[in-house]
């Protein structure tokens, strides 16, 4: 295998960059097909995301979502589990957060609700991931399929709850009532008044996401549990030999993964919408797969990848506004291409890059 060995900076820097570049080039071609100028598009995209305070605020807001779902997918990856059910776990986590907010918002200030909501979201998200994890560990049902099924079951459940149970009397739209101040997370525009975040919904959940990144980093690389998770993911036989219970690791990892996904609701439900509504997950669970892949399972990588996707989401909205023929769906296309090139085709450029570096390194060795 030494032929494929590359310096770490190539593995973690050059290759992902090349994959990303390929995704962007194809996206550019799509823009050309539509009959627009890709460079013009990039200009609007970047400006929309980073060019002014409100754009930056939105970029950070979206990135917050992806950090949570990216971490969820990454933690499961470390145990060799493919949790594609982030979407459902986000949804259910949001329910937990929503219920906490609905119960407390009239009686206590937000900083009391906040930790309770974190617990509620984590618990509900974890519970939704528990069943697929348990079924995989105990009954051998494939976690990819079960988590996909659970996404749909979550969706049906939430539609039912929102349109029959949580809907306030006399309204037609399937959503809960808006939380009062005690269930609203402070927006950064109200906290850091010196910076102009415009009307962007970026809120305290952003710092929660960063803190959670630190927690995950500690968990995976510095705790006994993390050691067990990584052993199990890298070599299940060796971990059985080491006395690590596969059932325990699978279930605990899925609980953690589901809890991380569940926390995304803090940003959307408690931070932005301040109510529980349909489809608030909006595909973020799947973006988490792309983020985890691009970030190579490391919290720093995940933050960077989340920022990139946040940028695309916000920039894409601006782009659609400036060039109406390029609708927001362009972002979905770019996202698909990033998943394709950074995920499924991640090894495509490896042989060529390896050949290049081998020649380079051998020629320097001679000299």
């Amino acid at each position: 295998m030494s032929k494929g060995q590359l310096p770490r900076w190539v593995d973690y820097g050059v290759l992902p960059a090349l994959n990303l570049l390929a995704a962007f080039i194809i996206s550019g071609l799509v823009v050309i097909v539509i009959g627009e100028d890709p460079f013009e598009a990039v200009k609007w995209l970047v400006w929309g995301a980073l060019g002014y305070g409100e754009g930056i605020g939105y970029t950070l807001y979206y990135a917050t979502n992806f950090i949570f779902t990216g971490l969820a997918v990454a933690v499961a990856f470390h145990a060799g589990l493919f949790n594609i059910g982030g979407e459902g776990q986000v949804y259910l986590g949001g329910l937990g957060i929503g219920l906490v907010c609905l119960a407390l918002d009239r009686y206590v200030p937000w900083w009391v609700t906040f930790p309770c909501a974190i617990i509620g979201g984590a618990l509900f998200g974890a519970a939704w991931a528990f069943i697929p994890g348990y079924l995989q560990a105990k009954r051998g049902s494939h976690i990819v399929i079960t988590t996909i099924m659970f996404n749909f079951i979550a969706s049906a459940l939430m539609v039912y709850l929102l349109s029959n149970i949580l809907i306030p009397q006399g309204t037609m739209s399937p959503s809960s009532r808006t939380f009062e101040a005690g269930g609203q997370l402070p927006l950064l525009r109200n906290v850091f008044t010196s910076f102009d975040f415009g009307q962007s919904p970026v809120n305290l959940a952003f710092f929660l996401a960063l803190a959670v990144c630190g927690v995950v980093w500690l968990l995976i690389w510095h705790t006994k549990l993390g050691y067990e998770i990584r052993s199990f993911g890298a070599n299940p036989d060796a971990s059985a030999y080491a006395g690590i219970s596969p059932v325990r690791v699978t279930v605990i990892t899925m609980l953690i993964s589901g809890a991380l996904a569940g926390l995304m609701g803090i940003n959307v439900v408690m931070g932005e919408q301040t109510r529980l509504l349909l489809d608030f997950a909006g595909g973020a669970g799947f973006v988490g797969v792309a983020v985890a892949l691009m970030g190579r399972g490391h919290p720093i990588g995940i933050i960077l990848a989340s920022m990139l996707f946040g940028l695309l989401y916000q920039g894409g909205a601006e782009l659609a506004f400036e060039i109406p023929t390029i609708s927001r769906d362009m972002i979905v296309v770019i996202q698909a291409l990033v998943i394709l090139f950074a995920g499924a085709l991640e090894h495509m450029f490896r042989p060529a890059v390896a050949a290049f570096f081998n020649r380079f390194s051998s020629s320097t060795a001679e000299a």
Partner: protein
Amino acid sequence: MGSVRCFSWGRGNAFETVYFESRHAIDTQVNDLIDQKGRATVAESNVPAIELIGVSKSFGPVQANKDIDLVVGKGSIHGIIGENGAGKSTLMSILYGFYHADSGTIKIDDKTTTIPDSKSAIAQGIGMVHQHFMLVDTFTVLENVILGAEGGALLKDGVANARSELKRLADEYDMTIDPDAVVGDLPVGSQQRVEILKALYRGADILILDEPTGVLTPSEADHLFRILRVLRDQGKTVLLITHKLREIMNVTDMVSVMRRGEMVASRKTAETSMEGLAELMVGRSVLLEVDKPEVEVGKPLLKVEGLNVKDDRGVLRVKDVSFKVRAGEVLGIAGVSGNGQSELLAALSGITRAESGKMELSGEKLDLSKAHDAAEMRTMGMSHVPEDRHRMGLVNKFTEYENSILGYHREPKYSKGMFLSKDAIRKEAKERIEKYDIRPPTPDMTVAKFSGGNQQKIVLAREIECDPDVLLIGQPTRGVDIGAIEYIHNRIMDMRAQGKAVLLVSVELEEIRSLSDRIIVMFDGNVVGERGPEATEQDLGLLMAGVNQEAENDHELPV
């Protein structure tokens, strides 16, 4: 071409007879010609069926085959022997078109040829029985046999023909098999016969068998050898790849020895001895000199009683096994691999759950039919060097220091609360690297980059330095270079001298004999006999084949 040949196979006996006779005549003529020229390389056989000249193959920096010359006579059984990793399988994969040689010439039937893929190998009359069977478990025997040579776009076109052809082949070569049985349900011996039939059905004249007896019981192996002899007598050429000397002596006409990617010798089997071949294989005297001082034997530290273990397919692999290992004693478990040793180790070390059985470990009684895990056994003073370090003993992606605590990561000295104390772990890893002379001395390097011997030392250091009462050790020197072998053997002797109980499982008889104080032999899951280290190789060999001469008069053992 393969399909044409297949077709001719189906023509019936009249054609066959003519075919064989005429070919025999040609062979004789050619033989005469060669004799006149004085180039005859092999006595019984005539025209070489296979000739390799200067074949080399590298995988990256590893040279698996170095300038190999080989002549295999037609209508002979030719053995290729060598230690694990000597390059035998690579060479055969080149012959079967799985790999491409970097350089060299291949001649089949005296014609220079290339074998770009398996399809081409089949077309040139080469069939291969792989070490891991290439069978589709959910298919029937018939479906497996015709796969790739179906004889038409619709299955029904070929099936009837194949059925009668299969019956004919099975009869001719003394292989009874139900064509409609699902392969996954068959015992391994029968599965192997399906593999042979597959090759013959495709019209193979040259049959390569890669370590065919590794998974067979001795009686199944004997059956296989009978089949091989029949094949040879019918004019087929058989290449037998193995690392077992007994098989070479038993069944081959010629033998070639490989060592570290090179072909070191070719001999007529009748003119060589096991000792001679063994020396050629390892390039040193095989009688391992181990310093084995007198040690006072203490009380039993490990007692096992009535152990029964099933594998994941529900087959009983360990049958009512009982033994004791005392302090200061090495108990060797000999046997052909696959006779229950792996399952025994897995059950004792807590990895799998036994059907029934009691264990007493350092005075504590355990019911092995209850759930235990490896961590529990470790805390009770048992450590375990597994048979397969890559699959079990190490996490290849992890660094050296991370591997140095595998299984012991919950020990208080490695952690503070829920966190690992990485400094303490690294520091200890460095000490062990020094003590065990592990190279390169870099605890932060991923373990996959270490050589086999050093990897084994990493495992050994971990399992010995935890100061266990009982050490289970499986195949301690598999895939390990000679220098490391000696080191590992000495460490095992140190454990013995310190009054530990060591249970040693190895398929290398020499290793067992030179290290053990007592030897028990496992056959088909049973302990079939116990001997002292002075037992002869022949005596142990018979036991390993399931024949207990001492007990033979009392009752019959299964053969």
